[in-house]
């Protein structure tokens, strides 16, 4: 495959980027309900449809539950379907999320991360995405605006892969990325067509056709249920290597690599590792560079894939390290560690007896600042030298 032509560079917000990303993939059905901080995306996509840039059926639904049901039904009927939501919207479509994955529909959804109900926070946080962990979706977390666009394209390539057939959620930090305008290269639509073209060469997936007596998802009694769930779990396992594979193909073609399931930054000779995800990883990199100048051997593992959890690659990256610090922008109710830290601790037998320090920070739009990350690195460094450490730290509560 040759290389893509250089795209057009524009300075636009993360939400607008999301709309561009979706439009470039030519979804046939879009069903979205506006919600802060995603609204601009839903509006921009509607604009694309109304001015003829995007030839799609835009269904103006009365709520998010309908949005997901429309998207998954369209997908069952064979259409390429897209939707976008956040927080309360994601929670409101919880049953439909599971229908979408249970039916193995390749719906692609953007989720602008925001805190969830209970404490009425109109602010950033990954709690919504984390709460949808067990819905059977593939969940990708992005760091910046360019990555939003690129990951939507990658998401369609992954979702519609014949060996995967799963819905994919692209998550970006609401408020931070949704409203942040950055320079973004928007690829030419012909190049996106070319990148997605291999999907058309696959065997066709089963579709709902009028007049044909065929059922989807409703026929899962006993062993039918077990078989369908087993296949679903196996597909999620396959998705891990597929993410790496598609990432490489994307990089070879468009010139931007994201390193698949996880990105490692200065980890090779590192004694200690900071694990983070989303927009905060940019700050973590900056602090790591500063600490490196002071002779501290610290590296970053950026978690890009939350589901399926990139166990094998994390083990490889973290094995033998002297201490690990995990920054979570959400909570795991009933477990004292942050959710990503809790998941990571499940790999302890493979990683080895290494101190793993859990940090809760950046909830409700509170910044994960340079001093915060500096503190995390200092404490993880001390733990690596065998000093006593605190297992869980809610950084804002100690300030």
């Amino acid at each position, binding site marked *: 495959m040759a290389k893509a032509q250089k795209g057009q560079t524009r300075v636009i917000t993360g939400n607008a980027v999301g709309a561009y990303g979706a439009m470039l993939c030519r979804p046939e059905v879009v069903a979205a309900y506006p919600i802060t901080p995603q609204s601009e995306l839903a509006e921009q996509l509607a604009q694309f449809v109304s001015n003829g840039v995007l030839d799609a059926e835009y269904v103006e639904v009365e709520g998010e539950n309908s949005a997901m049901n429309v998207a998954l039904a369209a997908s069952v009927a064979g259409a390429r379907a897209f939707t976008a939501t956040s927080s309360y919207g994601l929670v409101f479509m919880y049953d439909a999320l599971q229908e979408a994955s249970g039916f193995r529909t390749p719906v692609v959804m953007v989720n602008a991360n925001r805190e969830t109900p209970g404490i009425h926070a109109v602010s950033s946080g990954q709690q919504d995405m984390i709460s949808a962990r067990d819905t059977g979706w593939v969940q990708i977390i992005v760091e910046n605006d360019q990555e939003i666009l690129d990951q939507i394209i990658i998401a369609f390539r992954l979702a519609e892969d014949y060996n995967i057939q799963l819905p994919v959620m692209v998550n970006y930090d609401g408020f931070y990325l949704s409203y942040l305008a950055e320079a973004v290269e928007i690829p030419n639509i012909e190049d996106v067509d070319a990148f997605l073209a291999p999907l058309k060469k696959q065997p066709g997936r089963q579709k709902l056709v009028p007049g044909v007596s065929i059922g989807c*998802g409703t026929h899962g009694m006993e062993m039918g249920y077990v078989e369908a769930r087993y296949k679903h779990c196996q*597909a999620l396992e396959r998705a891990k290597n597929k993410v790496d594979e598609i990432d490489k193909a994307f990089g070879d073609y468009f010139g931007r690599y994201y390193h698949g399931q996880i990105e490692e930054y200065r980890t090779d000779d590192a004694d200690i590792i900071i694990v983070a995800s989303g927009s905060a990883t940019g700050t973590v990199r900056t602090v790591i560079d500063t600490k490196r100048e002071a002779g501290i051997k610290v590296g970053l593992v950026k978690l890009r894939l939350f589901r399926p959890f990139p166990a094998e690659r994390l083990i490889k990256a973290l094995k033998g390290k002297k201490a690990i610090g995990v920054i979570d922008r959400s909570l795991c109710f009933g477990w004292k560690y942050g959710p990503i830290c809790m998941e990571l601790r499940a790999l302890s037998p493979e990683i080895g007896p290494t101190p793993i320090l859990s940090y809760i920070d950046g909830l409700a739009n509170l910044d994960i600042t340079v001093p915060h990350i500096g503190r995390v690195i200092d404490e993880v460094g001390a733990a690596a030298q065998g000093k006593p450490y605190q297992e869980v730290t809610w950084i804002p509560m100690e300030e």
Partner: protein
Amino acid sequence: MVIKHKNIFKTESAWSNADEVLLCLDTGSWRTERPVLDKEKCNYCGLCALYCPPQCMKDMGDHYEADLAYCKGCGICATECPRKAFAMVPEGEFVDG
């Protein structure tokens, strides 16, 4: 892990061909009453089929009949029928009930 199970579904997703096999709930066994049609009253309007929750009304050409493998006996057909053509009869009154 050794898989001994033979796949029920031909496709990756749980699709089944309803003409060949219905791997769904045996909802007919839930029934305590069944709808019995008085053909004299039925004018083949089709409202019973539209309202039937499990969509088990069979089109017989000049009237509708519930597929007893799936009819739960909810009685919505009998309630909605404008001509009151369905009677809900207790299962105990049938030999096969």
